[in-house]
């Protein structure tokens, strides 16, 4: 039987590091989706997700509310993504400074980068619901439980998130067509 986040967090804190793997299993797709949208490449997203999980493990004793592990994990992921983006920026600058015009490698997009980017660009409340529903494998009632909100609010948020995603995807399609 799957236990809740709090249980595994406390198991880790009680000296059972191996139980962290349950949390890795539970959140790796969500993290990857979250990071792929921000970083634009599957490989970089995987690296950043690893880094996020390892950091989360070693910082677990600073987690005040074990039940909000997921929100906390996304916070760490954002930090890691920002660092990655900065490194990438420096790398690009250095490369453009060295005029030995080496072909900038094509960013290796994951399967559906436009979708991942659109998800990453959603306001947080909508993004969380989308991530949990499609990447965290939760049902609407599961999300309601995890985020402690009424079921009706979950479907409403989801509905609004779809509208935002479709707008954003259509906008992108238009600009892609223009190119």
């Amino acid at each position: 039987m799957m236990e809740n986040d709090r249980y595994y967090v406390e198991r880790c804190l009680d000296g059972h590091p191996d139980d962290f793997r349950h949390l890795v299993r539970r959140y790796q797709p969500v993290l990857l989706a979250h990071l792929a949208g921000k970083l634009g490449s599957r490989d970089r997203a995987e690296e950043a997700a690893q880094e996020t999980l390892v950091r989360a493990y070693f910082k677990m004793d600073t987690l005040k509310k074990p039940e909000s592990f997921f929100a906390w994990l996304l916070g760490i992921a954002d930090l890691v993504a920002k660092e990655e983006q900065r490194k990438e920026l420096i790398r690009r600058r250095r490369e453009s400074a060295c005029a030995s015009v080496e072909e900038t490698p094509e960013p290796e997009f994951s399967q559906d980068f436009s979708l991942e980017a659109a998800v990453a660009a959603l306001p947080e409340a909508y993004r969380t619901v989308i991530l949990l529903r499609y990447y965290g494998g939760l049902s609407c009632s599961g999300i309601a439980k995890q985020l402690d909100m009424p079921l009706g609010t979950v479907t409403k948020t989801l509905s609004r998130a779809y509208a935002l995603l479709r707008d954003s995807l259509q906008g992108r399609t238009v600009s892609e067509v223009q190119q």
Partner: protein
Amino acid sequence: MNCAEYQGLLVAYLEGLLTDSQKQAVEEHVKQCETCRTELEGLQTLQQRLVGNGKALAQSDLEEQVMNRIIREQSARLKSAGQAGMGLRLRRLIMKSGIVKLAVAAAVILAAAGGIFLWTSTKSGVALADVLAKMEQVQAFIYHMDNHMKMTGPGAAPAEVDVKMTWLIADGYGMRMDASVPDPATGQMVEEQTYLLPEQKVMLTLTPAKKQYERMMLDDVALQKQKDESSDPRRLIREMLAAPCKDLGKTVLDGVEVQGFRTADPAFTGGLRNSDTTLWVDVKTWLPVRMDVKLKVNEQMEMRISQYGYQWDVPLSAAQFHPVIPPDFTAGVADGMKIPAMTEQGAIEGLQFCIEFLGKYPESLDPGEMMKMFQSLQANPTPAMKKLMQEAAQSKSVEEGTARTMKAITPLQSLMMFHMSLVAQKKEPVYYGKIAQPGDIAQILLRWKTGENEYRVIFADLHAATVDADTLAKLEAGLPK
């Protein structure tokens, strides 16, 4: 319903959250209305895209990579624990492990203090006396002991600790224990060897995996107890004899015909009320085959101790009892710590500790109650407690944090164990912590019987005196029992 209202139901429809009649209404409407049908199809397309992307991402497998990185970093961080940035600091375990060790100490001591030989007065005494007589001829023996502890806090995940030990005991040489204990930082089992060295008054523990040694200092009382009691099964049988026990009759255990005895006498466990001990003895040799002790210290802590796999009269060499500390081993953080003194002076220091940390005397000296008190103190700490917790949290390593906490609460252990020993020795201890005011020179705090018409009393200002029964009666006159 109008189109906007139908569209408001589409997500719930796709999620299968509508009632049958609502579902039917949506389906009917979508058939007729092109706008809503297009909306529904748009949603379905997006959903499929999200599902597909989710599946693609779920195929990445970070689990092993992440777990391997954690294990590598954990051990690297532990090795350089002297530097900043350590492994995951198990804050809760640090604070708890003082209590864990307290409980282990309690368990070891549970059988230790008795000593009064009452076996002739028990019903099954004759048979048990045979067991004992047989055992005392045994020169050297080995046995296994498993100690399982389970702790639950309110709203917290249960913590379980398993310690596996092999004891080697030889009359002429002393005692050695090889143990497998979980490392508080990693949860991995770590091998340890512990030697009792009576001449040096030291208990030495070697941990080869950490290239580390630790010496615990023993005072004479503790030395005597450690030497001839703690985990010596002969001692446990004497304790068993001293308690009212039930004959369980004969049965077969691991192919051996055995006879069982069972007791739940609190005196057997130093006053712990919820205990249950079973001893099985080989009917042919009258030597123990298995012993199980179940203890419920309080609602939050349970222990199970099993002894089995006895090998009697085994050839053991002196070398097995004389440790050599390899030159590259270093002293661990607990090196030099004192074993809690189970003496009147130790108890007085424990009571002083309570005033400092609680601001008053504890209401009860029952180990379960004391543990609860200590736990509530962690949630709502006094300044002295806060300081202790901060020090533990700032320690360079888990071990150091544990050692600091342990060192700090040693007086509390002394107090608890001293009281347990009084209960086990049936010295009629009575404790008045509920009503005693710290500093009151005339108020009785703890008393116990030391002889015919003779009692020892610790007063609320922590001086001690020996009094006769009349004086005691005057002191206790008017006090609630």
